[in-house]
Every structure is written in C-alpha cells, then in structure tokens.
C-alpha cells in the first residue's frame, strides 16, 4: 500500500525538501509550527469550515453530464470547482492560508501569480479577513492579463510587476521569495500551488483536499461506491493533488493527471513536466523540471495560463515515480475541442486548464470501460479565457 507519509519531514520519496537560502529557514520553521499548532485545532477547523461553506460556497456540486454520458457510454461526472467563489479551486487554498496568517498575527498576505487567478483568490481572502495584500506578477503577464490585475486592484491588493528573467510565473515566484526574505517578520507568503519548499506542498494539499474529500462523500451518496477514474489537470498541481490525495489508498480508483503538451509539436515550450521533464531543484523543492542539460530552467508554455509552469509539486513527482497516479499529455487543439464540446453539450464554459482534463477523457473514451464512472475536477470556469480563445479562433479562421 502506498501512503504519502514521508520518511523525512517534507520529502515524498526522493522529491521535496527545503532548497532555500538559510534566511528563509526561520520563517519556514515558524510556518511549520503554526500549521501544526494553530491549523490543527478544532477552533481553526471550525472557523475555516464555516468560511468554506458560507463564503466560498462549499461543498461544490458534483454533476453527471447528461448529454456526454449518453454519447460516451460511460458516466462522466464533473466536480464543479468552477462554482466556488472567484470561479476556481484557488480560493480553497488562499482562504486557509489567509486564516492561518490572521491567526499568526501577520498583517500582510503576499503571493505570486501567473495568469492572475491565484492573485485574485489571495486578494479576495485578504480583503475578507482584513489583511494587506501584495501580489508579484511577471511584467509580461501583467500586460496579458490586465483584466485580473484590475480585479486584484479592486479588491485592494497592490500588484508588483516583475521585470526580471522571463517576466512570467517562475520569475514572480523568485520575486516573492526575495520579498519574503526581507519582510518575513510581517508577511506570510501565500504560495499558489503544491510547490515550493516544505511545508508548502503539504499545507496547500491539505487546504485543497476538500475537493477529493467531498467527491468521496458525494459518490457514496450518489452511486454507493467510489468512482473508477479520477481525472484532474496538472500544472503546479494543486487541484490535482487536492483531488487525488483522499483516494491514494483506494487502489481500485485510477488517478490520472493531465499535463499540457502545448502545440504538441517537437521543440514546443510545453508544460508537460512529469511526462517529459527530469529531476532537479527549483523554488526550494526537488521535483521534475523542464530544464536544459546544464540545469537552467526552460520557459514553459501552455495556452492555459494556469498550467504554464516549468516545475510540478513534489508529491506529484512521487505519485508518478511510484506509479500510483499516471500522468498524460493533452495538446492545445485537443483541449480546445474539449472546451467547445463542454460548452455546447453541457452548457458549461470550462477554464482552459480544466478543458485539458476533459480532453483526456474524450480522447480516450474508446478505451474506457462502458458503464464506468469517470470524474473530472473542473478546476475553474472559463470566463477568464475568452480573450485567449478569441485569439485562437481568429488564428484558426485565418489558417482555414
């Protein structure tokens, strides 16, 4: 039987650790202790549960696709994280970390963001709990995702454009870590995924496991047993980890993480870290990375901004290495097709990230047993992606 209990704190097999400057070890230790002593108390758990219910809108529903299930010949369920406040699963994590920050007595909540989804979720939680909020965002992303910058500002957050490096998510994380070194006394770093140094991968996974926990309860109520396949898209991997974690010991449940293959052409800067990357250290953790043979981190690419990261959570690297979860690739075209299918067949506009997970099911429908139960975590809604989709459709029209 596989379990996620690491032999050494912060390690999942050969993956994880704390590869950070010594100056960050005291705040990481402080966080680890606060998480163990504060977050574990019944009072904290009750307060968080109340916020998740009344403010976030949990439990999110589970929906059996009426049209697609008939067409496919098996039961396709969607875990509707798109219905959570702010339109994605990101709020589960930021609400937990913001509440912890409040209890730790730190006045500032600081985050990195790529496309802006985690930044918006952090700004939301900070606004609600009365924390000051700072968000680091690559200068390129600030321009590409102006709409989300505006949302963060409306929520009272200050957005810092990051001019260094490739000016994208990985550089925003570098900037956040640098800021945290300097301002650790007043600031909590609210990291956006199951990445980074210990204890972040565990904390973020724990705050996201409500997805998988609810799924189990909902399946027992709906069909009296657990699903056969549990599918989630995987960039940094927070929605996938939160989905998979409660199922790890259920050997009959197949776990499938779906990565973005970009255009799918050779040489494409994709984001398929687990399926095509190699072992290395980035942002404080040993995991699978997209890197050169000299150990330089390569720029990643996905049309789904939330999958666009050259690393992945260390626990995913471990689930991949042990074979407990499998990780598959879906390219831009396949994800777009799934996006359109879900819009038209079910009346749900999915986030492009989530469309990757749906695409894996549609692409592999012939091999999935008739009558089986497949659940996909629909990690977010697609309103945020309309600009990208419009651009893509125009390009396709011109090529046609």
């Amino acid at each position, binding site marked *: 039987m596989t379990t996620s209990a690491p032999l050494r704190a912060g390690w999942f097999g050969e993956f994880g*650790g*704390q*590869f*950070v*400057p*010594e*100056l*960050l*070890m*005291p705040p990481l230790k402080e966080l680890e202790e606060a998480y163990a002593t504060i977050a574990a108390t019944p009072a904290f758990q009750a307060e968080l549960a109340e916020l998740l219910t009344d403010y976030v809108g949990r439990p999110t529903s589970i929906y059996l696709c009426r049209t697609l299930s008939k067409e496919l010949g098996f039961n396709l369920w969607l875990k509707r994280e798109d219905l959570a406040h702010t339109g994605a699963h990101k709020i589960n994590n930021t609400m937990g970390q913001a509440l912890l920050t409040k209890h730790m007595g730190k006045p500032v909540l600081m985050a990195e963001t790529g496309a802006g989804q985690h930044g918006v979720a952090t700004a939301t939680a900070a606004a609600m709990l009365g924390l000051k909020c700072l968000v680091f965002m690559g200068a390129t992303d600030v321009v590409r995702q102006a709409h989300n910058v505006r949302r963060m500002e409306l929520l009272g957050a200050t957005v810092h454009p990051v001019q*260094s*490096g490739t000016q994208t998510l*990985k*550089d925003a994380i*570098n900037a956040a*870590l*640098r800021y945290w*070194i*300097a301002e*650790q006394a007043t600031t909590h770093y609210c990291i956006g995924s199951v990445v980074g140094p210990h204890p972040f991968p565990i904390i973020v996974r724990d705050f996201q496991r409500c997805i998988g926990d609810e799924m189990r309860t909902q399946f027992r109520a709906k069909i009296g047993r657990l699903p056969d396949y549990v599918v989630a898209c995987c960039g940094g991997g927070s929605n996938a980890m939160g989905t998979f974690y409660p199922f790890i010991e259920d050997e009959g449940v197949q776990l499938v993480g779906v990565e973005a293959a970009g255009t799918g052409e050779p040489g494409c800067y994709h984001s398929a870290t687990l399926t095509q990357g190699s072992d*290395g*250290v*980035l*942002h*404080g953790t040993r995991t699978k*990375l997209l*890197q050169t*043979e*000299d*150990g*330089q*981190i390569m720029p990643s690419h996905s049309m789904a901004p939330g999958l666009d990261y050259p690393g992945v959570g260390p626990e995913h690297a471990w689930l991949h290495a042990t074979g407990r979860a499998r990780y598959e690739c879906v390219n831009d075209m396949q994800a777009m097709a799934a996006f359109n299918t879900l819009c038209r067949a079910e009346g749900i506009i999915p986030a492009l990230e989530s469309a990757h997970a749906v695409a894996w099911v549609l692409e592999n429908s012939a091999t999935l047993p008739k009558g089986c139960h497949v659940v996909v975590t629909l990690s977010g809604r697609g309103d945020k992606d309309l600009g990208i989709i419009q651009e893509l459709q125009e390009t396709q029209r011109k090529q046609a």
Partner: protein
Amino acid sequence: MNAPSKLEAAIRAATAHGRPALIPFLPAGYPNKDRFWTELAALDAHGADVIEIGVPFSDPVADGPVVEAASLECLDAGVTLAWIMTELKARAAAGTAPKAPLVLMGYANPFLQYGLQALAADAASAGVAGIIIPDLPYEERGPFLEALSAAGVDLIPLIGLNTSPERMQLYARNARGFVYLVSVMGVTGERDTLPEPVKAQLAVARSLFPVPVALGFGISRPEQLKNLPADAAIFGSALIRHIKQGGDAAGFMARWQ
C-alpha cells in the same frame, strides 16, 4: 584528515596584516567570455585574497537585480559550469591561474545536473578551493558535503541575521574555509548602510565558528566595514556596476587598498 584549507589560510594571512581579507565576486563570463579572464587576473594582481566566481543560474533567488542581470547575460553568452571547469583546468595546467584561492558561487540545480562526484573531482583539479551554494541550507547539505569534502573542496556555509546560535552550531560542526555572514535581510546588491544587528551577529558568529567570518551582501565601500570585526569582506554588485559603467577590476580594487 583533510589538508588545511587554502581559503582559511588566505583569510588568516590578511588578518595577520591587520586588515580584512578582500573577496571580490564576478559572474563567470562577465562582462564577456574573454574579458572575464583578464578581469580575474586583474583582481588577483590588485589585492584580492580570495576570488569568488559566479556560476550563472536562470533563477537566482538570493540575488538582487545587478547580479541577476549579469548572470542572465552570461547564460545568453553560453556560459556553463562545464565551460568554467574546462577554462580553469587549462589555466591551472598552464600555470596562469590566479594565485588567490578560488570559490565558486552557484545554485544547487546546475551543480546537481553536473553531478556531485564530477563537481568535486573537477573542482579539485581546476584549483577551486571552495563552493558557496546559497539555496542549500543545513538540512540539504549532506550529499554535497560528502562529495566535496572527500575531494578536499570546502563547502562554505551561509548564515544570516536571523540565524540562531543553535543553527550556527550545526553549521560550525564541520565548517571549513570560512563562514559567509549575509549582512542584510534581503538579496545581493549595494546598500548605503548595513543594519545595526550586523555587529552583534558578527560577534556571535566569531565566537561559535572555528573558521573566519566573511561579511557579504550590500557591501560596496571599505568605510562600511569600520567598527565591524569581519575577517573578510565580499563584494559583487558594486564591482559589476563599476565594470558595466566602463571601469575595470584594477580600478575597482584601488578603492580598497
């Protein structure tokens, strides 16, 4: 037992002359792949007691904008750890290597990809006396320390103003060469003044470490070291900026004499 550390000896020699040892930092391949070696020789000829060579990395979280930009320029120019080792070995063989002992400063991932055994062996044969890895705290040092110490290469620990005496003692147990005290709560880059707690932390570090204590981050002028009992001073961003603005290593070192 290992031979005495060249780094410690070089720093103690400066101490014997009643001055802090000078440790300039220059990213390998800066300002370009040829001129780097000229500047390295100039640093050696103009008073450097130890020279720190930066191994560029795409994501240098402990560095400020000046060092990061210089490192990325070097990466664009094709600088790799393999190139650095090859060039250093050639100079060691030709007898044209700097007299001052050399230290490599780089992040964990490029070293891991190079392979720790290869790193230790090549560093030793290239005349590298020590390695500084800013994203390698005590908890992750094991495999690096084992490989490097077997080859007689010092793994230089970094500590900060928020490092407790208990943690210093962990590092002190197998410290060799020197210990690097980061003088600011932040990243590399020049500061006008060093924070007040530096003095007290220097005293604690000097009492707990059997090796010399070097002060780095934020240092650009000798005046900043007044009343600070550091055994050595490390400066990088100021040197890079001096070269970027048209100066050279010899001119920069003159202000420290």
